[in-house]
């Protein structure tokens, strides 16, 4: 343990035994900035919770959308279903890919090789690509390139496009590409936290490297993988820009039946209700309640992820 030097007050100058006013002032200023951020967060959440709660009931959560802007009957069940399916599909694509990439980076790659640095650079860059560019990519690659080609091969002669149009599968794949770095980074962190001794013990007992990874390393890293998956879902559930052109629908009479259908989406619905409502004042209760539903979804996911991660970190601390 390092002994930390704690002065009595952050602004007490021990040389002169005087109160240092400049230090006091700047400590207060930076503290004020910190609490400003927390206050803004509280205001946003409080405003949404209070105004959204009055309309937030079972009837609203399970209602359909025959009349989208009608305060009394409008519900959000189709959006909840759409959002749920799209994030589940996304998870199926992104978790295996992300975990395997993280395994390669921590277990196989040489940290100094130029090649590893390129992979890391690509992951970092992917994390910074604007979400609307993912939308363009989804349209240009999945729909216009892969989808159109699939139609030409599988449904040659058909009139209506089956794959070459916005669809749930393309939206999910676009989101999977977007959240890949989230899963990689979270998994890598948990893989690195596993003591080297565990791997060595396994190898010493005669297991091969791949066996060690599959039976010792990855099971130990499961909490981290779970954290990554949950963070990815939380991020994806609230994104609108990548699905604008790749699958989200303004209105659909039916629930989606297959992965090639379009879908209604909770986050996109927030956008529609806030910008295209015929009467903003009147539809405000549905808008607030929809925002509350979306926030509850993403926040629950985020809080669970933060909780698992902090427990995992505490455990790793204890091990070392």
């Amino acid at each position, binding site marked *: 343990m*390092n002994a930390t030097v704690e002065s009595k007050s952050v602004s007490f100058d021990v040389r002169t035994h005087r109160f240092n006013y400049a230090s006091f002032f700047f400590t207060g200023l930076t503290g004020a*900035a910190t609490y400003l951020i927390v206050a803004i967060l509280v205001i946003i959440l409080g405003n949404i919770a209070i105004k959204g709660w009055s309309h937030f009931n079972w009837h609203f959560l399970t209602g359909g959308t025959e009349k989208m802007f009608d305060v009394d009957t409008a519900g959000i069940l189709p959006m909840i279903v759409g959002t749920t399916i799209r994030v589940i599909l996304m998870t199926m694509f992104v978790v295996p890919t992300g975990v395997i990439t993280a395994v390669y980076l921590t277990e196989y790659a040489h940290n100094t090789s130029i090649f590893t640095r390129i992979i890391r650079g690509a992951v970092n*860059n992917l994390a*910074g690509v*604007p979400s609307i*560019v993912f939308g*363009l990519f989804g349209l240009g690659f999945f729909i216009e390139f892969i989808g159109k080609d699939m139609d030409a091969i599988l449904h040659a002669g058909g009139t209506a496009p089956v794959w070459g149009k916005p669809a749930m599968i393309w939206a999910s794949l676009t989101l999977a590409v977007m959240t890949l770095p989230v899963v990689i980074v979270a998994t890598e962190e948990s893989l690195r936290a596993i003591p080297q001794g565990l791997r060595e013990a396994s190898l010493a007992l005669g297991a091969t490297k791949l066996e060690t990874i599959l039976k010792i390393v990855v099971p130990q890293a499961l909490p981290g993988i779970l954290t990554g998956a949950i963070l990815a879902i939380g991020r994806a559930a609230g994104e609108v820009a990548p699905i604008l052109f790749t699958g989200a629908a303004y209105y659909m009479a039916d629930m989606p039946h297959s992965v090639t259908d379009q879908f209604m989406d909770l986050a996109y619905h*927030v956008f529609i209700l806030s910008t295209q409502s015929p009467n903003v004042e009147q539809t405000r209760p549905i808008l607030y309640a929809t925002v509350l539903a979306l926030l509850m979804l993403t926040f629950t996911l985020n809080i669970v992820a933060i909780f698992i991660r902090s427990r995992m970190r505490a455990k790793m601390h204890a091990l070392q």
Partner: protein
Amino acid sequence: MGLARGHKARPAEWIGEKLIFLISLSAIVVVFLIFIFVTREAIPIIVGGTGNSATNAIIHVSDMDKVPAEQLRNYLQLTPDEFRTKSHDTLQLLVELKEEAAKDASQDKDAAIDTTSWRYMLRPYQWTDYEKPEYIWQPVSQVRKFNIIPLLIGSLKVTLVALLFSVPVSLAAAIYVSQLANARMREMIKPAIELLSGIPSVVLGFFALIVMASFLQGIFHYTSRLNAFVAGIALGLAVIPVVFSIAEDALTSVPRSYVQAALALGSTKWQAAWKVVLPAALPGVFAAVVLGFGRAVGETMVVLMASGNASIMSWNILDSTRTITATIAAELAETVTHSPHYRILFMIGVILFLITFLSNLAGDLVMHRLKARLEGRR
């Protein structure tokens, strides 16, 4: 038995490891694919125009049945669904209307211009009925005008407001949380700011549009309720967690012994933070700002909902504004696939991708060097 070495000993394992390697390339492949496929749609624009002048290639009603259906559909700028559902008579009517419009247009001296060439996308031009050369983005009109300068300035304006608001606040908070606050406080504040990053941008946009816009207008009394200022402040809320977490990380990674030495010499905690820790972590702070810039330029939903969406050429932050991202989001769904407008939107997507790519690269490089230096590797 047992003598085989390398991949011959355990072929399944060898294949498994090669597969792991191949899948780990996906991140690189994806970055390349993004660049290639977004650029692919924009190539005709990049190499110099699509020949979209309003006068060329009129299809007369008499020739209507002779041209291929696909060409007719493109000519009328219909989506395949629309084209299929329209009767022959409706199509004929549309062709006649188009011909008349083209006749009207040919009296406009600008009709013959290919407005998708670089000259008209970047430099001001005096269009018919305008008094002086101007920068105009007006993709839906008789002569489609695609000058991207107003959009670039819009993005820059909103981003500047967002950074001016969020950078000082989040850097101050990062210094406070990493150096000045006690441990218990730190444990409470950090998750709170992490939660802020968990708010979806569409919710921030909603909050800016419904609550903040009226609130700020009540204080500052400007004319247009939605403008670059409102969008910038809301965007700042999305940028704060990015700048905060990177700056806080950089400040925390400065060895504790630096602070202890300063305190032992009699400095206050603030003096140690300001004169010792901050200079040591300065590259990291720079990286935080650069990455915050990348986030701000690329954010879509907040600016789409709160900036007012008028592509006016103006440096005034209290004017309604339209950014690159909002333009793509608002207009792409309305365009016909592979039309000039569609391609231009992909082209500004490429510009956006390059801007964020370069800023992320710069931020990462700086952060990498800082870590290496603080860990004593050079």
